[in-house]
């Protein structure tokens, strides 16, 4: 049984690692951009946990991403340059903010909930902006210098260490999430998503479970933020921006919510199209993304992963 579990969990995740390694050798001059994609994937996965599995509509996940980034950045500047400790601090800070804000935010539903998630991110944005002495304000937090990873690998200018580091974290996050999704907590989250009333009726503490899911996802978002602070050695106010949350949700929808691979593919496709279109012409980029969004909503409601499932049903397999 354990081997079957390992096969089911391990093989696709191993594939992710292999594809990541191939990309490492295939595009040696774009590692900075590829690293950004990997970090974004972790962030979008955290939103998938909240939104796709927990059914909590959020447009403020950047609150936790930004907290993680500033926490890891400040930790590196003032306390220790150890990257792994920094990751833990970032994840812990993200989870802490998610827990505290989740206690209030998750009491609301629908539009109220959406607004509260946005408000939390906006308040943190404003605090980071005004606490210039600590965060550097609008100039950003600079002066982050990371110690070599495990005392051996330096964070180099080309970004080889940064890329492999981010890839390793992504693979671990993916393993964690795949395990979480089949664990009782993950199944409970799905149940709450489908019908909160029924889950409450069979004795699940719905509010508590939602806060827990929100906290775990906040930790992952903080992890992504910490990674970005360490790899780019800079934290700007952008980490709290509404557009970061919104774009990440768009990536998730594009790939398909409630599916971990949806977050991976959606992020990869969105970032690559963005990269190509935005360098060509920033106006057309908004046309492209607007039409892409409308196309997904009106024609392929399940996202790209939904298309795969439909094709499979079409060709006689099981969905």
């Amino acid at each position, binding site marked *: 049984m354990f081997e079957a579990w390992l096969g089911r969990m391990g093989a696709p995740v191993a594939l992710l690692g292999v594809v990541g390694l191939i990309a490492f050798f295939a595009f040696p001059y774009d590692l900075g951009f590829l690293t950004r994609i990997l970090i974004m994937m972790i962030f979008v996965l955290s939103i998938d946990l909240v939104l796709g599995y927990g059914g909590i509509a959020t447009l403020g996940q950047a609150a936790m991403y930004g907290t993680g980034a500033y926490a890891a950045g400040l930790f590196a500047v003032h306390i220790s340059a150890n990257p792994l400790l920094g990751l833990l601090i970032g994840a812990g800070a993200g989870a802490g903010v998610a827990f505290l804000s989740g206690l209030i935010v998750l009491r609301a539903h*629908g539009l*109220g909930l959406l*607004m509260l998630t946005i408000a939390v991110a906006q308040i943190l944005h404003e605090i980071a902006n005004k606490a210039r002495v600590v965060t550097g304000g609008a100039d950003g937090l600079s002066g982050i210098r990371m110690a070599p990873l495990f005392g051996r690998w330096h964070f180099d200018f080309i970004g080889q260490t940064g890329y492999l580091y981010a890839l390793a974290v992504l693979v671990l996050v993916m393993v964690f999430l795949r395990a979480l999704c089949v664990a009782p907590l993950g199944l409970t989250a799905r149940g709450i998503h489908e019908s909160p009333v029924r889950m409450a009726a069979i004795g699940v503490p719905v509010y508590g479970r939602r806060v827990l899911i929100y906290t775990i996802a906040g930790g992952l978002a903080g992890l992504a933020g910490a990674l970005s602070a360490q790899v780019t050695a800079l934290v700007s106010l952008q980490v709290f921006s509404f557009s970061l949350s919104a774009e990440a949700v768009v990536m998730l929808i594009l790939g398909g919510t409630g599916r971990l691979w949806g977050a991976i593919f959606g992020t990869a496709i969105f970032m690559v199209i963005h990269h190509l279109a935005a360098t060509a012409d920033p106006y057309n980029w908004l046309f492209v993304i607007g039409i892409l969004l409308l196309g997904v*909503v009106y024609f392929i409601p399940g996202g790209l992963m939904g298309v795969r499932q439909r094709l499979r049903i079409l060709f006689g397999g099981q969905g």
Partner: protein
Amino acid sequence: MGMVFNIALDGLSYGMVLFMISVGLSVTLGLMRVINLAHGGFALLGGALMHGLTFQLGWPFALALPVSVLSVTLIALPMEYVFFRPLYGKGDLTQVLATIGLTFLMIAFVNWLYGSALLGIPLPPSLRGTVDLGLRTLPVQRVAVIVTGMVVLGALYGLIERTRFGIWLRASVDNRAAAEALGINTRWVFAATFALGAGLAALGGVLGAELMPIEAYYPLRYLVVILAVVAVGGMGSVWGAWFAALGLGLIDTAARYALPDFGTIFFFAALIVVLALRPQGLSGRAYDV
């Protein structure tokens, strides 16, 4: 004393602008349960049209204003038919995504038309001066905005409480299925309300251009503020939207004058306090979007 007065004047006119822009969204949200993030786009379209008519073609303000507002109202009708009908009854997220997509298209359209610069709307001389109240002099533009806001509130009150259309509208908000069973054409009520809301947003966008400058990214820049008014006011309520808009407008303006170091924190703190105590908003009823 002078500062208190300035805060009251600026806060009230800001609040009135927010009210005009948001009220349509609040009512359509109560009616159709569609979270329309593209609503600010109608204010942008109104402002951009106004810019084109007055600044580029040299039309007088008094003629260009009704033409812009009416045009946006008429543009909204086919948009409701094409984009929003398929969204009724879909999940929150689908609606959010589709309307963000629509917002991007509106931004890209205005950007393509006019570029990303500020789109100025020259005020006529009659609105540019000051009016003397004996005690103090007030900028006419602010006073005009406040008066227009009150007129809009009064007109909406009359429309909703005193006309047959208002009866249909209230019935459809309360219980769509029962309203349909009684022979009310809810589709038509939806479309008319949507267009009216879009027209009011255009009016608010044009009149508020002094406080919230018109530019291509307008719908995204003010999205959060507009949604905040709707969430705090409680959806489907004209009074709720009015109270929320004025309250948030005054709080934001007061904070900017008195405690500029804290920026927009008070605005969002007020939002969180209200929603933590009343998740359905000030006037909200106990059901979800």
